[in-house]
């Protein structure tokens, strides 16, 4: 009887450990493909006005981006610890809004092109999935970087033609914080939102 219990417990421990590492990149590819199709169809839909499009896309991309992580990484180990808890919350909220607009505006340029997903590239803690958009004049590559958290795949960076959205903001934040305060950064972020 005791032995049986031990075996059962052992199995429980092992299965737990294995389940924790269970992540399937194919899932990430499927996710990207379906989401892209929906986003492209919304952007191509001529019956919707700009506002309706924006709010629909907002709903589609909200669950697939890890905006909180993106905010943290955009400030980096160098600046993030300087923010108070309230500042962190405010920053994440403002930056999330901006990233959504940023992403939508960028992919708007490519919705007429044919999108082809390339095989995922396995990284240590993430998966990079390139998407090729073949246009008449040029081929554009969008690279999605995803990580696995809480059973879901989430995007934490997007590269367009090798240019990372995250790094582009990171260098700007770094530049601003090198000569101004966190408060200045937040007000600049807020200001540009109303522009």
């Amino acid at each position, binding site marked *: 009887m005791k032995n049986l219990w031990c075996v059962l*417990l052992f199995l429980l421990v092992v299965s*737990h450990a294995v389940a924790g590492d269970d992540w399937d990149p194919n899932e990430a590819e499927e996710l990207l493909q379906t989401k892209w199709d929906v986003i492209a169809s919304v952007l191509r839909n001529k019956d919707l006005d700009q506002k309706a499009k924006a709010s629909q896309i907002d709903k589609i991309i909200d669950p697939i981006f890890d905006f909180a992580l993106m905010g943290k990484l955009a400030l980096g180990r160098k600046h993030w610890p300087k923010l108070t808890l309230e500042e962190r919350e405010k920053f994440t909220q403002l930056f999330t809004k901006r990233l959504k607009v940023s992403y939508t*505006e960028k992919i708007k340029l490519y919705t007429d092109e044919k999108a082809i997903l390339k095989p995922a590239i396995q990284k240590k803690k993430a998966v990079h999935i390139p998407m090729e958009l073949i246009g008449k004049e040029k081929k554009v590559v969008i690279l999605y970087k995803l990580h696995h958290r809480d059973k879901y795949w989430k995007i934490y960076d997007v590269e367009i033609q090798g240019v990372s959205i995250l790094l*582009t903001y990171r260098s700007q934040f770094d530049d601003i914080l090198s000569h101004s305060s966190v408060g200045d950064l937040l007000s600049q972020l807020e200001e540009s939102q109303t522009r």
Partner: protein
Amino acid sequence: MILRELKTIAKSNHMKLFVLSMMFLVIAGSGCGVSQKSPSNHVMQASENGVDEDFDLFEEELAEQAVEIADPLEGLNRLMFNINDVLYFWVLKPCAEVYKAILPKASRISVHNFFHNLTTPVRYVNCLLQGKGKSAGTELDRFLINSTVGILGFGDPALDKWKIEPVEEDLGQTLAVCGYGDGFYLVLPLFGPSTLRDSIGMIGDLFLNPVSYVEPVEASVGVASVKITNKYSFHIGEYELLKQEALDPYVAMREIYIQYRRKQIQE
């Protein structure tokens, strides 16, 4: 004494202890699982000093990709950036808009193809200089096909029919492959973002560009203007977007240029 007692207890209750330790492991394990499962809160809950697992996981990756660029002439560069900004809105953009309105997209693509075909020597020679014999061959094939079947390069049957993709190489990239660093960041009048190395490369490439040999100089400049206008007719709105999104357009442009070039050089 106590140690010996403990040993005997441990021996007699060997199985119980094993079960207990296993239970402890399970609980500890699931505890970890739970702590990871706090989706939107993980930012706010992050340890006060900010050093937590997110940074451990991704800072390294970002640091690998981030490119530092010296910008000792920032004052001058910012001035040039502003001049180019004005030139874009007052000259280039209006020209490109009118041009776009007059010529249908198909014709503009043909013009793009023509100029792209004409600058084959730049890409061919740089492929060779980088020791990419196969890529050089690709460029030669494309040139031969597009100049004949594609009628003087206005069409791109090499890509459309034979799926032969162009290889974008230039002297700046060749120099980078040879081990020359960026030097420092430079904003050139009219041409925009560059680095010391890429500027030198660009001058070198001019010698391989047939448009440079058009006489008189005015005609050469005229041809180059058509090329630039044609190019921008496909990209109206992109610079505006960059400016709209950036907190500091100058820094954003610098970062984008450096990242873009790094990617090209890697390929």
